[in-house]
């Protein structure tokens, strides 16, 4: 029998790397030591390959993505926008209603001057107040639904 090939040659054979001579292949098939060495290397490669081919539970992936999303640099801004967005109609309605009301004689003339900019500022202030009330209402409702069984 020919002498045992170098360990690097066995590895090359295992990883199907390049062409080895038929002489080396025949030796490995016949030599118990080389066969055992090949089996041992193959086991490690197979074990690593099985770990590489395994999958993480999908729910864990989603949880990681949710945690990253919740901790990003814009996460706080997004949370505020999510809270405020449903109250935009309230803001719009309250602003327009206040503006219309301020155009009528019901306007407290001692407090609000009749120029358009002043009227607009007061109307927007009323809109913001209504919006804050709506945000507080929605938060109370969300808190109630979280605590109820």
């Amino acid at each position: 029998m020919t002498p045992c090939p170098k360990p690097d040659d066995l590895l090359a054979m295992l990883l199907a790397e390049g062409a080895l001579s038929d002489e080396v292949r025949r030796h490995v098939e016949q030599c118990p030591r080389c066969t055992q060495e090949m089996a041992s290397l193959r086991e490690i490669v197979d074990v690593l390959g099985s770990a590489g081919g395994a999958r993480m539970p999908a729910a864990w992936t989603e949880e990681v993505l949710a945690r990253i999303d919740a901790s990003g640099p814009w996460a706080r801004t997004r949370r505020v926008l999510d809270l405020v967005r449903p109250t935009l109609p309230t803001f719009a309605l309250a602003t327009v209603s206040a503006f219309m009301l301020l155009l009528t004689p019901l306007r407290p003339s001692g407090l609000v001057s009749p120029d358009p900019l002043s009227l607009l500022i007061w109307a927007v202030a009323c809109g913001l107040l209504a919006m804050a009330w709506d945000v507080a209402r929605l938060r109370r409702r969300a808190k109630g639904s979280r605590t109820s069984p």
Partner: protein
Amino acid sequence: MPEGPGELRTRWLSGDAVAFREVMERHGGMVVTLARRYARDADELEDLVQEIWIRVYRKRHSFEDRGSLLSWILTLAKSACVDAKRRSRIYRSAVDRYAEVPPEGADAEPPAGPDLGGRAAVAVEALARLSYRQREAITHRVLEGLSPEETAKRMGCKKGTIRSLVRNGLMNIRKRMEDMDDPVPEA
């Protein structure tokens, strides 16, 4: 044509959430297998795996583009596992001091996720503990299936060197697997 590791890496580095999901799906098994060596129960394993991935995401800009993504992930994973084990030891010693606790793992649920047996966990842990170059050579050549030429180009060395690095790395992993009854080394 399926996307190669290079394209996925580029998209992931730009912060693409879809690419990050693909990275988790592609390498999640290795991470879970490694973390299983360090977690005592299902909850601890899930927490640890999530902590590893969040660390990977936050540190993505420190990844060198020429290296193996899996090898880099394993380095961070090993570091997170060691940190978690240290925290757990400090916590347990504090609890033991003030309360009588049931024996370790008495009521613990078996960890969820892929269970490939103890040998896979030992092999992945041994891979994570290899020298940087041996780990890079094995992940490129054996796990990512790069050709010897491509691996040599990425690592900036000759093909013969790659072969030696892979062989020595596999030998080290084998040695670790032979001693697999040893407890997890302390940090």
